[in-house]
């Protein structure tokens, strides 16, 4: 499919066209960049590094109804995700899209999760390449990703100065490109080559890195190693590093009774860093302190997930490093794992 061009003046029109779908774009709430549904294209804010809360919350909402029940009436009314309608996430970063394709493997393994997979099917991802690394702690290139990564995206936009180079990557992307064809022009042939050079340049600007060679196999051997106690000593046991991680997918299921015995069974994000996460009803907790929980968080992403799905469940977006209140740095921990005897 030939690459297209979207001039920056036409972005507002294109977004206006997309508002007939459920259009989700980065927008500002006070000074915080948040992915939310926008109805007026003016709300979109594309000149940003990366959002605080990843766009995973669009396809895997923080709170979601599984089914509704009415006491006395045995029939359970299942939530129909179809009603949410086709969704377009506009302007997400390549690492967040790659994270979704990583999490897809879990939700489609063995039992298929109907809610997540249906929502993924209804969603088209329009990514925005990172000419500049959004944060000093980005390390996507160490995990097989790239600031111009295409994995998981349907369309990739590259900021070429006065216009965006539009590259449709999947069948869904092409369909969306046709819908927007009124606002697009053909891009000159050498633009795509120029984009490759820009990609190489952007990858050069990624400052931090880790050599993940051998980490998945080595982690289980460091079970009682001293590094876990030291790494987790400052940890507060809060949910920032997990809730804001685009590849974290753990959830809790709880029932909520509203009036007249009506209610719902809902699932909501949960964090392995919370103590109740593994607390047994008998009071026993197999992971009693933050040492075990930190060890589990790192081992799940860098050892257990690759063992089952052949991919490390981390995309190097750097959010857990930037936003940890006590500067616990996953790259420092991984370096200690590599050096550990």
């Amino acid at each position, binding site marked *: 499919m030939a690459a297209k061009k979207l001039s920056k003046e036409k972005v507002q029109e294109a977004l206006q066209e997309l508002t007939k779908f459920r259009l989700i774009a980065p927008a500002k709430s006070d000074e915080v960049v948040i992915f939310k549904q926008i109805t007026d294209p003016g709300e979109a804010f594309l000149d940003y590094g990366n959002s605080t809360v990843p766009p995973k919350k669009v396809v895997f909402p923080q709170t979601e109804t599984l089914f509704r029940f009415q006491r006395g009436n045995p029939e359970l009314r299942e939530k129909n995700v179809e009603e949410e309608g086709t969704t377009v996430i506009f302007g997400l970063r390549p690492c967040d899209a790659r994270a979704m394709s990583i999490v897809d493997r879990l939700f489609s393994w063995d039992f298929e999760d109907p809610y997540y997979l249906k929502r993924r099917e209804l969603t088209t991802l329009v990514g925005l390449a990172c000419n500049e690394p959004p944060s000093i702690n980005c390390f996507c290139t160490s995990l097989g990703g790239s600031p111009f990564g295409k994995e998981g995206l349907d369309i990739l936009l590259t900021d070429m100065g006065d216009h965006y180079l539009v590259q449709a990557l999947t069948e869904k992307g092409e369909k969306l490109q046709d819908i927007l064809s009124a606002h697009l022009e053909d891009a000159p042939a050498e633009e795509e080559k120029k984009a490759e050079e820009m990609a190489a340049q952007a990858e050069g600007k990624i400052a931090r890195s880790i050599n993940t060679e051998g980490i998945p196999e080595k982690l289980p051997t460091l079970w009682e190693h001293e590094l876990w106690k030291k790494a987790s000593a400052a940890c507060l046991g809060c949910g920032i590093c997990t809730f804001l991680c685009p590849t974290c997918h753990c959830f809790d299921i709880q*029932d909520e009774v509203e009036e007249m015995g009506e209610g719902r*069974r809902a699932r909501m994000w949960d964090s392995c860093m919370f103590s109740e996460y593994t607390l047994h*009803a008998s009071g026993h907790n*197999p992971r009693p302190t933050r040492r075990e929980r930190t060890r589990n968080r790192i081992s*799940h992403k860098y*050892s257990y997930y690759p063992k089952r799905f052949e991919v490390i469940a981390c995309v190097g977006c750097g959010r857990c490093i930037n936003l940890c209140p006590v500067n616990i740095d996953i790259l420092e921990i991984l370096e200690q794992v590599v050096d550990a005897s």
Partner: protein
Amino acid sequence: MKNPYIPYEVKILDARYETPGDRCIKTFKVTFADEKVWDTWSHLPGQCAMVGIPGVGESMFCISSSPTEKGYLRFSIMKMGKNTTALHELEAGDSFYVRGPLGNNFPLEEWKGKNIITIGGGIGQAPLRPVIQWIRDNREDYGELTVIYGARTSADHCFKDEFEELNSCGDACCHLAIDVEEEGWPHFVGFVPQLLMEVSPSPENAIAVTCGPPIMIKFVLQNLEKLGFTPDQVYTTLENRMKCGIGKCGRCNVGHLYVCKDGPVFSYAQIKDIPEAFA
């Protein structure tokens, strides 16, 4: 494909208390409210199901009836938290919801022609009961069946009536135990691992299955090794907090294994090198 989060409604045929006290155990015999579900339902001994009441919650329990017992499912539930307390208030005729079958099962096909030893402690007998029932209903496929079962006191013994019958019909030889001496108790007095050494079954062409409190399993595994059982001859079930039961919500992992998907049945060989299995 059916949505794995939607449970089936079940009607309670019979609800009976197995043991008294604040952590009492109640056994429910239930059948599906909608008959058609039986056509698609097929479970094997060792598999579990999420049992709960919409509006209260859900928890994972082993199905303590063998598939050879047609027309009903059995759950033995110990009163522990919010969900189990609500379940304990239900009587025959009420209904609750079941989601499953979940998890893997005891590899009974592989065990054909072998001697089977079941070693249970307290409520740990519930996952072993379908194994015993399955062997009794396919008696000629299996060798000797030895049942070792202990609990704190004689009142805490589950499935008392079935043990008498088991002993009398000769399908198996049962060895029962209680922790502390009790007036009028004819059998062994002491912990299950000690009773195991008393019975000392031979590891020759044998399989040992053990379920119970973690402290008991620790010593039983040691004793089985002393008796010469190799790790792949020993099977157990693990317990962990579970929410989805289908390998998605992430919390029941023991090392890289999910207890709800790769378990709850594990061979000792599988979990021998996973320290978290005994955390």
